[in-house]
């Protein structure tokens, strides 16, 4: 009796989280799965008809946005990685007593709403703003060129918004890395560059993996950056879902798109971890 109780204790601890997950994730998910198979119109209401055609229709109608979402998210993830790795490396190894301060600076943007930050970028990059004028001066931008409402702006916005999600896991990985391993590498005739390539990078892979997922997944579903920094030409699947839900009120299409997005990301993540995960775990630096 007593033993049984003890065995149940971990479950009691998990209970609030489980309840939260069931009420705010499980039930809505089932509900939306239900909605995604309905037909009808906003006036007369929708009704479950097991209309799997909603999915194929959504794909054929919104394929450009789906593809664009994946493309933007991918490029933004790569950009975030390129910026975050040196930054995390610097904070972990070179920042000394500034470490805490710099980490605070990395997360500081989170103290402000994402919408507000993106609106600030909108103001900075506006067509008659200072930045665009200077870029035209030095010829990086044609005289009638613009940044706002281009894919550059949207991708840049996404990379900016999700950068901390890349920096923090990378930092954690690098910080944890035993510095003596680098000494051992140089002792075994590796130059500093080779030691970095053969030891630092492979051992930072868990952080790289986590960071990439943390950026890529929300970036795929992001709609704020496309809405504020892009035009309809840059709309991503997130924008489509949003307008279908809130403007057109075509709930089944919006729900179907949501599930498609979940499905695509799930498949992508499984493939990604299969490739990178097993590679790092068995044969990484070989």
């Amino acid at each position, binding site marked *: 009796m007593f033993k049984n109780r003890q065995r149940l204790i971990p479950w009691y601890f998990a209970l609030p989280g489980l309840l939260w997950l069931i009420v705010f994730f499980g039930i809505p998910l089932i509900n939306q799965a239900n909605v995604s198979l309905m037909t009808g119109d906003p006036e007369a209401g929708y009704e479950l008809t097991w209309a799997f055609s909603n999915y194929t229709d959504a794909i054929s109608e919104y394929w450009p946005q789906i593809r664009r979402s994946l493309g933007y998210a991918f490029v933004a993830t790569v950009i975030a990685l390129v910026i975050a790795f040196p930054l995390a490396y610097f904070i972990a190894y070179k920042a000394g007593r500034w470490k805490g301060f710099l980490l605070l600076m990395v997360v500081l943007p989170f103290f402000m709403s994402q919408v507000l930050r993106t609106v600030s970028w909108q103001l900075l990059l506006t067509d008659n703003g200072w930045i665009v004028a200077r870029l035209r001066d030095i010829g990086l931008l044609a005289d009638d060129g613009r940044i706002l409402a281009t894919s550059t702006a949207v991708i840049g916005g996404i990379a900016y918004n999700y950068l901390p999600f890349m920096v923090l896991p990378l930092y954690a990985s690098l910080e944890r890395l*035993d510095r*003596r*391993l680098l*000494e*051992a*590498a*140089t*002792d*075994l*005739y*590796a*130059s*500093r560059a*080779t030691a970095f390539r*053969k*030891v630092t990078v*492979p*051992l930072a*892979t868990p952080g790289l993996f986590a960071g990439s997922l943390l950026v890529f997944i929300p970036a795929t579903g992001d709609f704020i950056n496309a809405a504020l920094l892009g035009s309809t030409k840059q709309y991503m699947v997130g924008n489509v879902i949003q307008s279908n839900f809130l403007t057109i009120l075509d709930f089944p299409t919006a729900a179907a798109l949501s599930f498609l997005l979940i499905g695509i990301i799930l498949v992508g993540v499984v493939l990604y971890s299969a490739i990178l995960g097993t590679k*790092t775990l068995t044969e*990484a*630096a*070989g």
Partner: protein
Amino acid sequence: MSINRTPVSYWPLGQNERPWRAIDARTTPGIGVRLKLVSTPEQLTPEPGLRTVEDGGARAAATGEIRLEGVSKFYGDVTVIDDLTLDIEPGSFYALLGPSGCGKTTTLRMIGGFEVPSVGTVHLDGHDVTNLPPNKRAVNTVFQSYALFPHLTVAKNVAFGMERKGVNKAEIKRRTAEALESVQLAHLAERRPAALSGGQQQRVALARALVNRPGALLLDEPLGALDLRLRRQLQVEIKKVQQEVGITFVHVTHDQEEAMTMADVIAVMNRGKIEQAGSARELYDYPSTAFVANFLGQSNLVKASITGTDGDSSVAETHDGQKFKVPTGRVAATTGELAVGVRPEKVWISELDALDREERRCNRIRATVITSAFLGVSLEYHVKTPGGDELIVTVQNNARDQVDWLADGTEVELSWEPDHTFVVKVGADV
């Protein structure tokens, strides 16, 4: 270097570690032959010594000579190494022994190239390598807690150095396999280091360093993380490896017994300086400082001065006026602060006036037993002299030498041979 050595496994197995491997090695001809590899001439000849990796072509004779000249190391205001000069003979097993913070690890790291001396030069085989990075030095290190690459298999760990040097793949494969077999870990080649026990990891670290055939091997407290029994066993094994590969081993440790078990030459370090260097026997029998006398074994030391010398024999007078004969050869200094000493096991203890004149040793002192302990192999007495010095006397637990267990408070006479007496310099820290 003897080539026709009998084929031996240089990793005799611990009783608790996969005994069937040991049986394999003896009964399976194939394995027995392969275990011979350490004794093949090719394996025994280190690559051209401690030349820097870069000066490739010239095949100088491998020696493995290490020389530090006037080396100091400062961190800010702190002096870690204080004007250190040392010569390590090629092919010797050299131990740097000292308490933590004495600078022994820093010294090793300067030989390995991980630290650059603030002053002075480091020479490997006559070449000045003071400013060369570790990857340009033909020495390899076995790190404290091993520093095995956790993301690589055991085999890949061992192959790492050869891959960097551009050894061809077939040879890497062959030498990796050989090295792993010689440490009896061939069956674990594809495992990750995390899946290995401490002793096994230690062997991988040793194989990973030796497979590169360095001119010298540096060992930084390589056994510190292991339990006593395994440590004892590996001490003997590493010593055996050194004798078989015949290269210089520099071993850092704070464990005097470990240094005595393994090293040909022990350098006792204290406060960034070498107090004394020599064989275990020399250091034990002829300590030159109070620090050495107490770091290598125990010593009874009493403040004294030299009051007379007559040829081979000198007289030391203690602060409380006792006079002892000392062989002049065992007097480390005649001026400055000195102490006269004798090892606890060299002293005879007996009840006052219990001994005949003939039985008494020449150096004698009265004392009172304060406390005693039975340690199995010996009895240990703590006694106090009239001058207030506390001395230790150990008596072997054999019927030949002793005598009943003397009770606390017993008035006793201590006596010992003048030949067992020595005089040492007293540093700032006795």
